[in-house]
């Protein structure tokens, strides 16, 4: 079986869906951050696949992917730092308990 563009697009759509479901259902803030990575990876797979199959002579999609990876890393680092500071104050990383402010 040859791998075509459609396979990549389906894979990335699945990853995107799994990421969204993970963000909605995870209780642990670290788990939410991991699901966020899936969202970014879904977009990155799309970019690389489109770049390979549609514009093989140009590298815009690949460059975009490198930037996506860097930005996703920056976002996770900041998220982990805030979660760590939160853990020091409240002894929990449970997203359900981050509810001092509501309505």
């Amino acid at each position, binding site marked *: 079986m040859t791998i075509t563009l459609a396979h990549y697009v389906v894979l990335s759509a699945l990853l995107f869906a799994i990421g969204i479901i993970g963000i909605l259902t995870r209780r642990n803030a670290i788990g939410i951050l991991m699901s966020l990575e899936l969202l970014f990876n879904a977009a990155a797979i799309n970019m690389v696949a489109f770049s390979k199959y549609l514009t093989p002579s140009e590298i*815009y*999609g690949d460059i975009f992917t490198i930037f996506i990876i860097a930005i996703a890393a920056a976002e996770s680092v900041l998220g982990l730092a*805030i979660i760590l500071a939160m853990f020091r104050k*409240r002894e929990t990383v449970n997203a359900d308990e981050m509810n001092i*402010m509501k309505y």
Partner: protein
Amino acid sequence: MNIALLTHEFALAGIALLIFILDLSGAGKKVTGRVFTFSMLALLVYVALSRKDGVILNGAYTADGISWFAKLIFLSGAFLTGMLSTDTLKLSDKRAGAYYFLLASSVLGMMFLASSKELITLYVSLELATISLYALAAIYREEVLSLEAGIKYLILGAVSSGILLYGLSLVYGVTGTTYLEKILFYTSANGFQPVFVLAVIMVILGIGFKLSMVPMHVWTPDVYQGSPTPVTAFISVASKAAGFIFAVRLLSYTLIKAGFVWEPILAVLAFLTMTIGNLIAIPQKNMKRLLAYSTISQAGFLLVGFIGAPVIGVSSVMFYLMAYTVTNIAAFGVVAVFEKSTGSNEIDDYAGLAQTQPVLALTLMVALLSLAGIPPLVGFAGKFYLFYAAMEKGYLWLVIAGALNSTISLYYYLLILKRLYIWDKSKTSTLPKVHVPAMVTAALIICCVAMLAMGILPGFVIDITNAAAEGMFRP
């Protein structure tokens, strides 16, 4: 390549580095704060006087009227935020350098965003602006409220940016290019493709977070309440302006051929944003939360103008963003000094402010009436122009809904003003007297003068925004 077009950004990056070095060499928060504030003022004047037009990097970076005016909005927001910050922040000397550095890098991201005409540059500069704001929201790391604001802002912001990114990847997949000019050329030549519907919806959801547009508005009240007040002021004006510049570049300019998809969606969302924001604002007890819901409804008004006729719509949005910057910073400035002196943000505690601090109460009144759209303040001229842009396109129902919403918003602004001026004299307040530092006084005076001047003579600024918008759509 004409590298001189990047002078403004290089200057700002230099200022950020200077603050970094000052911080490393042990300068206190007074020094870094004043250096930040006055270099922002200097840069604002420099940008205002030295407008450059041109295109570099194969069209990825454009300096035009829109980007020039947007940079003025961002820099005035940063300058006024700096004036509010110096005396009201509860930060130690060691951490203040990080605060101003992050603020400067956020403005740098916004300035790049205003000039980008290429998807990678747009996305990276949007993230530079936003990630700095996540850190700023959580900068009071000893306070649980601030941390909670930071984590909520970060998670919801990252979700929306993931959705936006997926939408952008679909746009790239259809057109095979990341340059906005080439995407525009592609959509003109090849017509509309069904996958654009999905891409446009995802882009709208992604930008909707920055604009605090329903249904992506849920973060707004929590982040506004938990963040340090000057940061809230900055998020409410500059970050929203950045979101609208992004929307102007991507939707009203590049995907104008897909207008029949995004226009009706945005019209319904504008109606929902105005109405939901206003209705939830009425029962609020906390001043910062109330202003948060009020900014949600303001985003709805801005969207009404945004979907109006192309040139006039963009022009009215730019004008209102400038008006909104000075108005909202005045309101948050009063909240910041009140919070600093009394430690409270409850609306009930504002009772009798007109007696202890009559000028401060008057400033809050001017700001709130301008937000409600009462002449001769600038909010009236701005809203009038937004509604005019929507009428040009024939959105009568939306304009009627907007006018009704203006009235609802006047109700809860007047509830605050009633507490300021008419209160139970038998209950004397136990809170300490509000002290207004000199820098904040100066900022409030600048805001009030700008509100009055732009409200009485809106023509000067509207001429500038009109010329800028026409320049963008000229081939």
